[in-house]
C-alpha cells in the first residue's frame, strides 16, 4: 500500500514495561518507539521472549505500561483516561488472538461470542438488528449464517479463527492488532485466513499491527516491519528494504534462518548465528538511528559509521 497517507494513527513513545519488583525485575520492553500510519500493515517480528506480544497487549491496554506513552489519533490511551474515550477506543481498537482453540468461549454459542462486544457497547438498535450484524460479520469472513447457533467445538481451527476475526470486525474498528493470527493453523488454512485479512483490510479501510515470528508471512503481508530482540527494536524499515538490505546482525541472522521451500537453496544454506556480545554497548550505548530514508537501526556511533560506509559501498558496486 502506498505511503501517501502519512497520518499517524498509533504512536508508541519511549515505551518501557517492567514486570516484578526489586530483585525480580524483568524488563520486557526497553525504550521502544515507533509509529503506525493509517491504512498500513505494520509488522512486528521477533522470537519467543522478545516482547512482541507484550507490546501488542500494552496497546490493547491489557498490560500496564511502566513508563512511556501510547497515543491513538494523538490522544494518550495508556494510564488513566476518561470513560468516554475508553469506550471509544474499546470499539476502535480490536485484537485477533493466536490460538483459535483457546480464544473462544466453548460454552457459549457463536452468536453470543461474536455479539459480545456489541452487547457491551450497546451498538445496536434491537435484537433483530444485532442478529443481522452477527450474520453479516459471519458472511464477511466466509462462514455460513446458520453457524451462529452452533458451538465452537463443532468447527475446525481455521473456522474458529475466522469466528475470532468476525468478533473483531463486528465492532467496526479502525485498528486491529493481530497477534500471530495464523501460527496455530494448518499450513493450507493459513492462506485462507491471510487472504481474508487482506480482503477485509481493503473493504473496511483498516490498519493492522501484525505480530509474527514467521518472516515469510511478514514479507507477504506487511508494508513496514520492525524487528524486536529482547525488548528492543533493533531494526525498522519498509518490508522489502528490510529483506533485501538487512543491516543489523540480528536481522541478518534471523533472515538466514528462515527455511525456504527450495531444496537446492536450503541444502546449501549456512546458518548465521547472532552473538549479542559482539556489540560493545557497555562502552558506547546505542540509539535508534536513521541509516537511510525510512530505515532505522539500533546502533552506537561506531556501528553507525560502519553501516553507513557499507551502504555506500553497496550503492557504488
Amino acid at each position, binding site marked *: 500500500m502506498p505511503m501517501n497517507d502519512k497520518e499517524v494513527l498509533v504512536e508508541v513513545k519511549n515505551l518501557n514495561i517492567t514486570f516484578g519488583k526489586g530483585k525480580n525485575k524483568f524488563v520486557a520492553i526497553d525504550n521502544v518507539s515507533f509509529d503506525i500510519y493509517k491504512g498500513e500493515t505494520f509488522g512486528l517480528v521477533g522470537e519467543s521472549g522478545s516482547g512482541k506480544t507484550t507490546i501488542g497487549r500494552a496497546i490493547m491496554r491489557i498490560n500496564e505500561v511502566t513508563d512511556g506513552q501510547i497515543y491513538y489519533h494523538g490522544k494518550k490511551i495508556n494510564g488513566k483516561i476518561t470513560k468516554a474515550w475508553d469506550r471509544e477506543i*474499546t470499539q476502535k481498537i480490536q*485484537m485477533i*488472538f493466536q490460538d483459535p482453540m*483457546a480464544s473462544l*468461549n466453548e460454552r457459549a454459542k457463536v452468536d453470543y461470542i461474536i455479539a459480545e462486544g456489541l452487547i*457491551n457497547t450497546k451498538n445496536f438498535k434491537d435484537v433483530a438488528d444485532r442478529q443481522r450484524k452477527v450474520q453479516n460479520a459471519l458472511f464477511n469472513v466466509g462462514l*455460513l449464517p446458520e453457524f451462529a447457533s452452533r458451538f465452537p467445538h463443532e*468447527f475446525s481451527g481455521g473456522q474458529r479463527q475466522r469466528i475470532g476475526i468476525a*468478533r473483531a470486525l463486528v465492532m467496526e474498528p479502525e485498528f486491529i492488532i493481530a497477534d500471530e493470527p495464523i501460527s496455530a493453523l494448518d499450513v493450507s488454512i493459513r492462506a485462507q485466513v491471510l487472504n481474508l485479512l487482506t480482503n477485509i483490510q481493503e473493504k473496511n479501510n483498516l490498519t493492522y499491527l501484525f505480530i509474527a515470528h514467521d518472516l515469510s508471512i511478514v514479507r507477504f503481508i506487511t508494508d513496514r516491519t520492525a524487528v524486536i530482540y529482547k525488548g528492543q527494536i533493533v531494526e525498522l524499515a519498509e518490508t522489502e528494504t528490510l529483506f533485501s538490505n538487512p543491516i543489523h546482525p540480528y536481522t541478518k541472522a534471523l533472515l538466514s534462518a528462515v527455511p525456504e521451500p527450495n531444496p537446492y537453496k536450503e541444502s546449501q544454506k549456512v546458518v548465521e548465528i547472532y552473538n549479542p556480545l559482539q556489540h560493545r554497548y557497555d562502552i558506547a550505548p546505542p540509539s535508534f538511528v536513521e541509516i537511510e530514508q525510512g530505515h532505522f537501526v539500533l546502533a552506537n556511533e561506531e556501528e553507525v559509521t560502519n553501516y553507513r560506509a557499507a551502504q555506500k559501498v553497496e550503492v557504488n558496486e
Partner: protein
Amino acid sequence: MGLYTEEFDNISDKSRAELFEFFETSDRQAEETAYSNYSYWRSTWQSFLKNRMAVLLLALVFIIVAFTIFQPYLPAQKSPTEIYLDDQTGLQARNIAPNAEFWFGTNSIGQDLWSRIWAGTRTSLMIGCVVALVEAVVGITIGTLWGFSRKLELPITQLYNVVDNIPTTIVLILMSYILRPSISTIIIAMCITGWVEMARFIRNQIVILRDREYNLASKCLGTPDYRIIIKNLLPYLISVIMLRMSLAIPFAIGAEVFLTYIGLGLPISEPSLGNLINEGRVLMMSPDLRYQLIFPSIVLSVITIAFYIIGNAFADAADPKNHV
C-alpha cells in the same frame, strides 16, 4: 508399492471417458463441516450410564428419598414419636423385636422404629441437602471473588487462613453449645465451616481459567467482570460444583451423627439418623436389642456409600477425556 487396482480394469471404455470429465465443485459444500454431534452434557450422561453400579445406586437413592417423603401417607403407618402401649399389659411396648406390627421393632421407650427410621432419614437428608446448598452458594460466591478480583485476593486469603485453621469440631461444639440444639443450629454450625473447602476449590479453578485467552478477549471487548464470571467461568465449573455437592451431602449427614454422638446433636424428640444410631449404640452389647443399631446403621451406610459412588462416577463421566 501397489499399482493398479482390479476395479480399474473393469471399467468399460465409454464410462471411462465420461468419468474423466471435470466435476463441478461447490464452495458451499466445501464449507459445510463434518457436523460433530458432540454435546458435552449428553456425553457426560452417556458415560455415567455406562457405570452400572452408579446408576443402580442413583436409582436406589431416588427410591429412598421418595420413600421418606411418601412413607407417612402410606396406609397403616405409625407415628414416629408416639409411645405405643402394649394392648395386653397397658405398659410401654419397649424393645420389641421386629414383628408383624412393628416392622423394625420398637425402641427402649416404645416408639415404632420403622417410622422413626424414615422420619430420621428424612431429617438427616434435609439437613444434608440444605447444608450442601448453602455451602455451595457461599463457597462459590466467596471463591469466585477470591480467584477473580486481584484486590480482594489478599483479604480473603487471610480470612481463609484464619477460618481454615480453626478445628471444625471446636466450632461445631461451640455453636451447638451456645444455641440450643435444633435443626437450624446444626445447619448453621455446619455451614459456618463448610464453605471453606468449596471456596478454596472454586478459587483454584478460577485462577486457572481467568488468564485464558478467551477471557482476555472478553476483557478487550469491554465485558464487565460480572458477565465474564457468569458466562465465561462458571459454566466450566458446573460439573465440579455438582460433584462437590454430592459429596457434601453424606459428609453433612456424617457430621450430624458425630455431633449427636458427642451429645450436641438434635434433641431426642426430633428423630434423626444420629439420634437413632446413638440410641442403638448403647444397646449394642445385648444381641436381641442389636436391631436398634443395625437398621439405622444400614440406612446411613447405604446413603453414604451411594452418594460417594454416584459423586465419583459423575466426576469421571464429566471429564471430557473419558468421553470416548
